[in-house]
């Protein structure tokens, strides 16, 4: 292994590859900030550039840099504008955006950068050590376990089920799940609840819904009740994290790096589940007084999903590199790029082409470091976006909200749907219905139904719950994560 690490370091630290990783991180960060352009789209766009480079190591290093950069860029729009462009950064907006509204945008971005760096770096370390071993564990997960894992991911809604809000949080989750059933499901190939409208055949777009439920209501609320985001306390550019804050988030980062990585290893789970689960777990194990801060600008609530989604992204390379199985849409595109570069990922990659395998892992370390070094000095300037006068800022937020939905589907009907859902989101916000559970339900709903249906078909009914101990265990954990905090709140009264 030491020899492999040295080969990888030598390749990744060459001047050309260093420039490539810096370029990749910068491109990923800036394009990733545009809602609607997630890592998958950006990597797909960069593939022709990577292929023309000719050298597989350099190409993969470029794509890895773009990948990490895009995830960080996505978090930026989530934190500053409450406009999560990809599902993996939705959970970052739960506490990141309230921090921005409190005038702590600089601090929020710094925590996001450090948590992403730590998650990615610890993930790469775990990848280096456990990759061959974990690939076989990932294969133990089948549809029933995936279904149970999605249910565990849904337990993140408990964070929004405050006093008098439990039924509303449940209602919003069910509404999200209902919306996920619209369109042609992957398993049945039958259009459902489309009312014969062609535009609904592929269901509602995630970006449209995310923008309509998060970014649009926030922007309209800023119009209704003007509030200068850059003026609160003058701390907007302040990056400093106090020693107490660092001590508070350190264990969160440690735990979520490991948890996020292991969830990322499972094909199909990915950064979204990891971030929701990370958020739910950290909220549940936090002391009572800190639990109440979740959703209102808790630094732990921001550090947890940021660490987990980066660690999960690294984890998703395990099945790709060791088995040739893409665990997510993004790694599927990376697999396509590898094949185009005449590299066949799988168990023999480490033996036949160690320089590529180790160069990718080493470039993850370097990519994360470069991302941190490049982004920390940029944070005050990125945070200053919020100091732009309201008369200019709000039309731009609305424009990027519209663009996010339009670029994703290239369909103007999507924009009308965005406004329609946005009005519903505003009404729900007026009535104090928590909106994050709706999006959590929508994101997890499709995957949950597919895995549930597949399990039912395989086992001829719901017997899989009892026949597969891992499924039962995960469902018990999910029930615990949902019920315990509610009971604890009741008992505390």
């Amino acid at each position, binding site marked *: 292994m030491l020899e492999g690490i040295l080969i990888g370091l030598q390749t990744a630290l060459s001047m050309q590859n260093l420039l490539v990783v810096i370029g990749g991180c910068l491109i990923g960060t800036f394009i990733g900030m545009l809602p609607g352009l997630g890592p998958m789209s950006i990597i797909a766009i960069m593939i022709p550039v990577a292929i023309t480079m000719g050298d597989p190591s350099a190409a993969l290093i470029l794509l890895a840099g773009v990948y990490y950069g895009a995830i960080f860029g996505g978090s930026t729009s989530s934190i500053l504008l409450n406009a999560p462009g990809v599902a993996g950064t939705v959970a970052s907006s739960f506490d990141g955006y309230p921090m921005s509204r409190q005038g702590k945008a600089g601090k929020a971005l710094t925590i996001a950068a450090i948590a992403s760096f730590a998650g990615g770096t610890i993930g790469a370390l775990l990848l280096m050590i456990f990759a061959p071993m974990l690939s076989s564990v990932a294969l133990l997960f089948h549809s029933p376990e995936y279904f149970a894992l999605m249910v565990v991911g849904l337990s993140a809604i408990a964070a929004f089920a405050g006093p008098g809000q439990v039924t509303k949080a449940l209602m919003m989750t069910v509404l999200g799940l209902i919306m996920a059933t619209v369109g042609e499901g992957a398993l049945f190939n039958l259009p459902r609840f489309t009312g014969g409208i062609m535009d609904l055949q592929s269901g509602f777009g995630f970006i449209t819904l995310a923008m309509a439920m998060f970014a649009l209501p926030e922007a*309209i609320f800023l119009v209704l009740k003007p509030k200068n985001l850059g003026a609160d306390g003058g701390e907007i550019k302040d990056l400093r994290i106090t020693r107490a804050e660092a001590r508070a988030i350190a264990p969160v980062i440690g735990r979520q790096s490991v948890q996020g990585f292991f969830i990322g290893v499972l094909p199909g789970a990915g950064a979204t589940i990891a971030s929701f689960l990370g958020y739910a777990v950290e909220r549940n194990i936090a002391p009572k007084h800190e639990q109440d801060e979740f959703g209102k600008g808790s630094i732990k609530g921001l550090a947890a999903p940021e660490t987990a989604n980066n660690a999960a992204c690294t984890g998703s390379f395990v099945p790709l590199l060791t088995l040739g199985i893409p665990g997510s849409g993004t790694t599927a595109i990376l697999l396509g790029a590898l094949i185009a570069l005449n590299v066949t990922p799988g168990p023999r990659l480490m033996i036949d082409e160690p320089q590529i395998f180790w160069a990718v892992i080493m470039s993850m370390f370097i990519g994360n470091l470069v991302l941190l070094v490049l982004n920390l000095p940029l944070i005050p300037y990125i945070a200053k976006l919020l100091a732009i006068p309201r*008369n200019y800022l709000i*039309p*731009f937020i609305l*424009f990027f909200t519209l663009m996010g939905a339009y670029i994703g589907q290239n369909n103007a009907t999507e924009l009308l749907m965005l406004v329609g859902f946005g009005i519903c989101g505003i009404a729900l916000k007026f009535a104090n219905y928590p909106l994050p559970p709706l999006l959590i339900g929508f994101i997890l709903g499709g995957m949950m139904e597919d895995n549930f249906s597949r399990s039912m078909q395989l086992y001829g009914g719901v017997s899989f719950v009892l026949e597969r101990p891992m499924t039962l265990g995960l469902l018990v954990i999910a029930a615990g994560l949902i019920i315990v905090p509610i009971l604890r709140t009741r008992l505390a009264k």
Partner: protein
Amino acid sequence: MALDRWIALCLLGLCILYGYTAWFTMDASLAPFMRRNPIWPSTFPKVLSVLGISASFIILIGLEKGEEKIGEIDHRRLGDYFLGQALVLLGLMVVYALCLRPLGFLFSTSAFLIVGSFILGERKLHVMIPVAFIATGAVWYLVQEVLGIFLRPLPIFVGV
């Protein structure tokens, strides 16, 4: 009746309609071989409709005790806020959605940004117009020319 209960009433109606479709209409067109499956396309929606109806009913009759919380904006006093601006901006978004294709990206977007800031009270035309044009041009160049995602730049009658 409080707003959250009105919304619960709407959601109840929606869930009943959804449930009716799932329970009574979806299975009619199911192929015979699919009927032998332990799970049908309507199974998950049926469960969801029951959950949705129960949850909305609980909110509607106020079974869950909780103090009535007013959010950051009190919807009962909307007249105290900049409601007109918000409504006109929402209308502007609809107009933008309808004009984007026929009028092209460059014109629609510049107009959206200029009119948007004008609605919000900005009167410095010498700042507003260049900012809108530069931002529109930069986004179009990035999306279409760099990223290769087609955005019709000019109006349809120009033919580009």
